[in-house]
């Protein structure tokens, strides 16, 4: 008998946390998304789908959806390609590769808030080094964080820099697990270096690419809050307000609980869809070795 309940006891601590702090909030958000919570009366008025309707007719929200797609899309594409090339470079057996690896991986250890602060400094119009180099080499002289479209570029610099090492680490591991016979065979067949990269290596690591695209989407959409808050605060105007920043403003600055709950439900559904895609499509392909 004791033996029978033992595994359940082992699960209790984990499930307490998951139920109270993930599933309960998810249901709380769903429930509250159907109400309007008045600030003073502490009254709840059932409004049905009104919160969702007002979200999708809200110009600012639709803008945030659009900005999130662009910001995440650009960050993910740039980060995936750059990290693949840097991983190819790091995979070469040349002297000093261990030091290069350490330096290139380093941003993995720092936070998104730190990434925001570092790039806010580098792009500062008075003291920033990158700002200076941009002026010298490209003739760009601007207030990076406070003008369009440079504010968006600034965020993308910071988030690409921050997400690169994670992707490189995985690509490098994938490259190192490709059997050398495969590459040797292609050399004998006379495939040129470029062709080998695109026709043989890139398809071979595609399961890792799939995994990294998912992780980068999550990172660029959700974790980038800190970068935005430190660098642009969603501005100028609402120019760099993404979905999470908008949620933060509505939920905590303006205290629109019903509206914010509806946004939370939408974000949660987006996350669930991503998770389902990963498990149904990726799981079969990721373990290719």
């Amino acid at each position, binding site marked *: 008998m004791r033996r029978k309940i033992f595994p359940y006891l*082992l699960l209790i*601590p984990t499930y307490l946390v998951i139920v109270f702090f993930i599933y309960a909030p998810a249901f709380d958000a769903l429930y509250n998304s159907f109400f309007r919570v008045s600030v003073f009366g502490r009254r709840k008025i059932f409004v049905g789908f009104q919160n969702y309707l007002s979200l999708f007719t809200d110009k600012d929200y639709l803008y945030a959806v659009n900005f999130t797609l662009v910001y995440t899309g650009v960050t993910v594409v740039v980060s995936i390609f750059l990290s693949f090339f840097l991983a190819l470079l790091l995979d070469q057996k040349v002297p000093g590769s261990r030091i290069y690896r350490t330096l290139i991986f380093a941003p993995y250890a720092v*936070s998104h808030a*730190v990434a925001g602060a570092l*790039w806010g400094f580098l792009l500062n119009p*008075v*003291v920033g080094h990158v700002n200076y180099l941009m002026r010298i080499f490209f003739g760009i002289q601007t207030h990076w964080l406070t003008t369009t479209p440079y504010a968006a570029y600034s965020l993308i610099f910071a988030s690409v820099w921050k997400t690169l090492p994670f992707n490189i*680490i995985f690509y490098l591991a994938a490259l190192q697990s490709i059997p050398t016979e495969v590459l040797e065979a292609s050399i004998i067949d006379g495939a040129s270096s470029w062709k080998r990269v695109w026709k043989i290596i890139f398809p071979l690591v595609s399961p890792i690419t799939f995994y990294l695209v998912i992780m980068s989407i999550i990172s660029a959409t959700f974790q980038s809050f800190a970068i935005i808050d430190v660098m642009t605060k969603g501005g100028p105007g609402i120019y760099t307000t993404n979905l999470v920043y908008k949620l933060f403003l509505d939920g905590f600055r303006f205290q629109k609980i019903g509206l914010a709950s509806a946004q939370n439900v939408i974000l949660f559904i987006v*996350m669930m869809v991503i998770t389902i895609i990963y498990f149904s499509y990726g799981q079969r392909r990721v373990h290719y070795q």
Partner: protein
Amino acid sequence: MRKSTKRIIKTIVFEILLITSSLLMFAPILLAIIMSIQPPEFVFSYPPRFLPRGLFLQNYLEAFKIVPFARMIFNSALISIFITLGKLVTGSLSGYAYANFVFRGSKISFYVLFATLFIPAEIVLIVPLFRIVSRFGWTNTYWAMTVPFLASATNTFLMQQHFKTIPKDFEDAAKIDGATPMQYFTKILLPLSRPIIAGAAIINFTYAWNMYLWPMIVAMEDRMKTVQVAINMIMNAESSNNWGIIMAATVVALLPTLILFFALQDLFVKSLVGSGVKG
């Protein structure tokens, strides 16, 4: 002859590309460290300077004056250590259940848990999570900053995967010797899992140390805030934009995890790739 010249040229090209990219990737961190130990004349010189001259620690002292920085460092450390320990305990217990036991409902509960694998609840569900935590009366406390993060599907998954690789013979032998399942777990399974536990520990610590949005929202008083939040506070307080001070705060926020990473890079990389999942 021609082949070896080609090889040398190739190596040189790779070296140049590698040196350039490592410098570019590391430059932001390096410049922050340099600026944090330089006086304002250096920081504000135009064109910007790269090579440091002397040591100027006033920036750090200033940062400690603007915000209760010592307390914030303590908060960050305390929160990160508790979250790390919690995740290791809950993760290894539930991982043990899924790896070594057959029980009713194991499959369905597994799915319930793994649906949450990628969900950073402190961001995706921030408004309702905040409501629940305030209903518990936890705002402005360490409870709010630790308890919701004491378990994660990632850690369960990682430990379960690892426990599965340990030969069943150990368990059978322990059973014959009269060991209870708990004794087998603490005396044999955990000691055999030291490397994976160490790997999970540093990844969990890094994640916890680097949290931003959640601590910012649940800690209203300055003395409950964390170093990550302090960066932004100092940035907003320094109307003169004294970047030396801001960079000093940034360096304090990044140094612990960076040192951890430099010291244990191989372990970091191995467990990150091994887990196949983040955070």
